């Protein structure tokens, strides 16, 4: 099970804790949307490579 965590803003302590919980004992990847020019092509590749995707606030 591979989880992709997408961050729409800089993760705070609560988000970091939740990510730690949901990704425990699982493969995990991440993508930061909160940048000037996100690499959307890379994001789509990551989405297809993951079994589950979570968009964090």
């Amino acid at each position: 099970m591979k989880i992709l965590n997408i961050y729409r803003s800089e993760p705070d302590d609560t988000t970091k804790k939740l990510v730690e919980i949901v990704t425990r004992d699982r493969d995990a990847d991440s993508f930061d949307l909160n940048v000037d020019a996100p690499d959307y092509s890379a994001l789509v590749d990551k989405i297809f490579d993951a079994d589950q995707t979570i968009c964090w606030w």
Partner: protein
Amino acid sequence: MTNPDQFKHVMGITKAAKAKGSNVKVFFTWDATHNAKKEAGFPELCKIADDVSICVDSYKNMGYDIDDIPEGLEAKKMATQAQHGIIIEDYDCYLSL
């Protein structure tokens, strides 16, 4: 789509996914229905994506006249949450922004 400030990402992801040969369906609900009226790129998104629809109840709750159909949409795309369910059921990947 539930957030009104994520439209640029929807456009970016839709273009990238279409470039890779994927089918893309976008559903706007609640605050994100503002995008249908206020985002200049909304009609373009309707052309690029395979399917774009909005929650008509959300649109009404955001203060719009349901007979004021946003540019790029057909009346039948002023839809219900059933469209949302169809995405979850029929598509391999689901992204909430």
